[in-house]
């Protein structure tokens, strides 16, 4: 190969790396530069005293507080749906499923993992119409529907990480308990899961991050710009990512725009924390395997 071509290939690789880091750096610096001045207690609590807001004694009307609480509640509810079903399915796929059915489940999960999130949102929306017609007149797109749809969205992550965490265990770990007379379930609950718990938890935290950032699903299933803190499962609610989306298309003043930047920074920080946590746990699991096997 011509030496010039070799140099150009190397040069191109370095340039693309630099451009990528440059692009993401500009993006983050712009965000911080614009938004950092709006980060204060007014951004979150508005005119209300922080203590009153935190104790839910007064409604916050012009701050991000309801959106933050909405996002936290939404994450909690979705995870409560997704963890038991996800972990149980993961266990089934790793330990019980026979080879005849495994390809079917695997294909369905790949599809679910690949479906655009807007379709999951559309599914939630149609589900609410369906329930509205056939079950109760009071069901509209709401908090409950959103949390169920989000749970569908993150289910593949939890299932896959649980399955991987159990399948990739060393043979000796998998069989020691059984050889000592533990039953299949005992082996799973007391040996296999505790052994690789941090890997499973890293998958769950990653799922939490996805719940926190997703906008397309909640947009179709009941999030609104102004609703306050949801008081029932069938109520509309606010959420941080939707607030950012709403501000970007519909801001009236510079002040509102600044709040949008502030919301971006908060959301980014939240996602970064979850992301880092998930990675630390994943690494911990990997290191443990490297030394024990």
């Amino acid at each position, binding site marked *: 190969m011509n030496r010039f071509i070799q*140099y150009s*290939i*190397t040069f*191109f*690789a*370095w*340039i*693309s*790396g630099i*451009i*990528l880091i440059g692009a993401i750096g500009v993006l983050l610096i*712009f*965000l911080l530069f614009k938004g950092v001045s709006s980060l204060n207690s007014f951004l979150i609590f508005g005119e209300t005293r922080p203590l009153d807001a935190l104790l839910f004694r007064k409604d916050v009307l012009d701050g991000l507080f309801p959106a933050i609480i909405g996002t936290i509640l939404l994450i909690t509810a979705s995870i409560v749906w997704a963890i038991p079903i*996800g972990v*149980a*399915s993961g266990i*089934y*796929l790793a*330990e*019980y499923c026979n080879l005849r059915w495994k390809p079917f*489940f*695997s*294909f*369905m*999960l*790949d*599809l*679910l*993992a*690949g*479906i*655009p*999130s*807007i*379709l999951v949102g*559309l599914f939630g929306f*149609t*589900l609410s*119409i*369906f329930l509205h017609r056939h079950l109760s007149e009071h069901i509209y797109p709401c908090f409950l529907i959103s949390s169920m749809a989000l749970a569908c969205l993150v289910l*593949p992550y939890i*299932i*896959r990480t649980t399955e991987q965490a159990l399948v990739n265990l060393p043979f000796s770990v998998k069989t020691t308990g059984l050889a000592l007379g533990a*039953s299949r*379930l005992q082996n799973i609950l007391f040996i296999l899961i505790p052994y690789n718990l941090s890997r499973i938890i890293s998958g769950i935290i990653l799922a939490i*991050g996805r719940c926190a*950032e997703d*906008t*397309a699903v909640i947009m*179709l299933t009941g999030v609104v710009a102004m609703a306050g803190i949801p008081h029932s499962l069938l109520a509309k609610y606010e959420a941080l*990512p939707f607030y*950012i*989306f709403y*501000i970007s298309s519909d801001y009236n003043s510079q002040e509102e725009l600044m709040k*949008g930047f502030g919301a971006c920074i908060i959301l*980014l920080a939240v*996602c*970064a924390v*979850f*992301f880092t946590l998930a990675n630390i746990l994943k690494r911990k699991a990997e290191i443990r395997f490297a030394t024990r096997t």
Partner: protein
Amino acid sequence: MKPFIEKCAEKGFLFSAILSASITILILSFMIFFSFPIFKGGDIAAFFTLGWNPYEGKFGILPMMAGTGIIASLALFIATPFGIGCSALISVFSKGSSGRFLRKVVEFMTGIPTVIYGFVAIFLLVPFIREIFEKGTGMCVLSASIMLALLILPTIVLFLSDAFNSVPRSYIDAADSLGATPAQKLVYVIIPYAWKGIISGLVLAAGRAVGDTLIALMIAGNALQIPTGLDDAARTLTSHIALIIASDYESPEFKSIFLCGLILFTFTTLIVLIMRSLGYFKILGKR
């Protein structure tokens, strides 16, 4: 533990797995159920026409299909060379600290919410594009494609650098002992060996580009037309669904979004099938 509990637990696990798998089937059947009247009415061809004008009863979704196709392929076109460059840097040219740093940055990128990419693009990229074209709002195919390229880059880079790393040690050693330079190793050993991985990474990225909603919704302009140039506004299938949530469930307008959904679902199935035929199972990409 009692055999009874064992049995119950096993049934519980089985039930959860069936429930998870049935969500996919349920999503598909909802799409088909709600778009079924279109197929039955026989006016399916009308939906694949150009015009969209609810007041005249025209509900063609061709503009949205064109918008999705153009924006996604342009994004892939922009992202592919950078993606190959970055992953080559990580796995071949710089295995030391700068390569590791780049990989860390790329991994972090997967954790950045899509809505933040869109938000920053509106105030950073869109004004810039507006200046370049000197007309329009700057919300156009090009802006959306650039941002979408940035969004799918992590998928490409992480997948490709894994594929590059999967080349057997002995091949690399053989090339090294013959005195190959890193660039020669890349072109003659690694890329020929890892081509399946490269194709799969790009297919996965294409799936993500088509499935993404927020970027196109926020910065592509959402105009109902077939874009004819880079500075034209366009609407994608995904943002069309987000924009049309009519309250009248029986209207053709509303039914058309399920047709869009069905098309997206078919596309996803295609992506998964291609990935499987290339030997990649258990795909987990961020949507």
